[in-house]
């Protein structure tokens, strides 16, 4: 018995060896190193100089840090919410045994496969003030479109809109979730005389809540990492008026343009903690309303 245990332990460790190495070298060590660097002046080229918590103190006083945090929170919240509404709506529409489901699904899904670099260049072109297709389209509807990416008030919504275009991914997930909801529940609801919205909020959403929870957490984490869209569409300074200076963009500037790796590491740790707290909060919240039994 104990020999079997020993063999299993050896085998288990052997099978997990690549991951144990990867975990240490590419995750735990960097994470610890980042914490150490965050307590130092570190330009990579010169050895780190220990300065205690100065970087964190500077961070709290740095208006750019707060600005980028605000921008990221705004973007993450907006894109998660919009993405959720759009993808769930699409999934609900498609879940009605509609003809040509495959074709619609493909159409909605394809944009989500678009590489971010290509997508950003494409949307930059579409948002163009004069010859862009979006404002021309709005013009035909009698609306004078905003200057989008060159207007501080519209730049973030513009990038959000682009994110919504990629909502096909979540749609496919919700669709799969919806198709798992047993029809007996709807039958029961119908007998009780539940209307459309009652069925939606009392049957459908509770039934797919685990899926929603999982995807919302993942998309919050993704939203916090927004970088490429802004880097390509509005440049690394986060123009106009820093309205698209996202947290990771700021981190990149500080770390890889100013070579203030210590400060960047402090920023990285703060981001890490924010994500931890958000995930923890989401999990706590989910306990209250996510239904796992069926």
């Amino acid at each position: 018995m104990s020999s079997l245990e020993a063999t299993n332990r050896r085998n288990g460790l052997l099978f997990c060896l690549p991951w144990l190495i990867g975990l240490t070298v590419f995750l735990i060590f960097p994470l610890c190193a980042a914490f150490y660097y965050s307590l130092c002046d570190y330009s990579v080229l010169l050895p780190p100089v220990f300065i205690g918590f100065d970087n964190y103190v500077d961070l709290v006083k740095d208006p750019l840090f707060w600005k980028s945090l605000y921008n990221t929170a705004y973007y993450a919240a907006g894109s998660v919410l919009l993405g959720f509404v759009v993808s769930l709506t699409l999934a609900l529409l498609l879940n009605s045994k509609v003809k040509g489901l495959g074709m619609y699904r493909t159409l909605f899904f394809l944009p989500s496969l678009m590489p971010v670099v290509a997508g950003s260049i494409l949307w930059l072109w579409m948002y163009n003030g004069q010859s862009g297709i979006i404002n021309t389209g709005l013009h035909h509807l009698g609306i004078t479109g905003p200057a989008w990416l060159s207007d501080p008030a519209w730049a973030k919504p513009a990038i959000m809109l682009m994110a919504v275009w990629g909502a096909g991914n979540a749609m496919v997930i919700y669709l799969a979730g919806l198709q798992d909801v047993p029809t007996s529940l709807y039958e029961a609801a119908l007998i009780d005389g539940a209307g459309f919205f009652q069925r939606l909020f009392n049957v459908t959403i509770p039934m797919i809540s685990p899926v929603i929870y999982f995807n919302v957490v993942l998309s919050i984490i993704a939203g916090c990492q927004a970088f490429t869209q802004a880097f390509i569409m509005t440049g690394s300074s986060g123009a106009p008026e820093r309205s698209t200076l996202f947290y990771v963009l700021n981190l990149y500037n500080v770390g890889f343009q100013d070579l203030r790796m210590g400060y960047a590491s402090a920023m990285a740790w703060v981001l890490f903690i924010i994500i931890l707290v958000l995930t923890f909060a989401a999990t706590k919240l989910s306990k209250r309303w996510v239904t796992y039994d069926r």
Partner: protein
Amino acid sequence: MASPNPLTRTSPLVHLPLILLASLFAVPLVWLLLTSLQPREQVGKIPPEWLPRQNFVTVSGKTIAVTPPTLLGSDRLLVVPDSGPEAGERLLVEPTDYVDGQVKVRTPIADRIEEARYPAKVVQNVPGRFVIVKEWFLSKYTQREARVFYVDPNTIQNKVSPVIGNYPEAIRALTASEKDKTLPLSELLKKSSFPWTKKGDRTKTITFLTYLSNTLLVALLSVIGTLCSSSLVAYGLSRIQWKGRSTLFNITLATMMVPFPVLMVPLYGVFRSLGWIGTLMPLWVPMFFGGAFNIFLLRQFFLTIPSELSDAARIDGCSEFGIFWRVILPLARPALSVVALFTFLNAWNEFLGPLIFLTEPETFTMALGLQQYHSQFGGSEWHLLMAASALLVLPIIVLFFFAQKTFIQGISTTGMGGR
């Protein structure tokens, strides 16, 4: 109404919002494709046009694509001087500049203009209602001078005609060496430097194929690495009972919350001390050590395989690795293909990693090469940018149509927490 009510029959009305939304979703892709086929004069027109159109004139039986016409406005003479700096050239002059068989030629020298008269012959009387058009060249790297025609505006035909040539031109534009851009495309591509080309080889140059091969190399190595490592680890975490397994699994789950940006500064330090900055290694080597999400996904799948199968194999004398290799892996093919597909996609689309770890164009991936091109020539040449973007997107779309089922199933399962 549609859902959430799968019991009632589908109302045909549901197609209305669906068609509307589907066309909204399709607009960007259609726009990408159509503008990538427009001639450069058409791109940036106000208001924008959808279908690619070009002007054509017929000259001595041949139909030639030409640039947009400009009106002459007043009667002119087309003359050819016999001598002087412009001897043999066709000049369009004011009738008043041509007196007694001599033409007045103005030559700008620095900021003043010199005038002189030279004998010349009249070739054509051009009425003022005529227009000037130039031969339309696909490539701005063409050496030859464009021919100029003075024609009746009514003879110009405006036809819908896609400029397929934008694609080779975009490939040309992505080439690093200025000198080589004038070469024929096949020769240009033959000079491509590849990841296995000797560094600093002056006969080679960085072309589209360089970026493509770098991307494919990284993507394929990442797929191989992920498949090997993640399946091993997932096996160790699901099908062997050992102390510490659940701890390791929980840690694995937790690491899914550590995004790359948190790690990029210290990882840069790690790769620096390994001497990997400026090489493709940071992009694929870590894949050989597993990734949390893929491990999680495969573990969930492995758990669904009945343990009787392994037990039977064990009784037959199979080693643990033998069970993994001969029993579990063949059964896990659907899950493995999902993992492979997503790893490939991620590698193909990845931008921040290449941006930080790659320094020389020789090692750039497609995404980075496209961004560099955009940062140099952005704001103009949208037709070429769109063609270049299409080159980055098309392989993914083709892949999608070949593996549609894996895509949809894969996303459904991953998104539902691997259930």
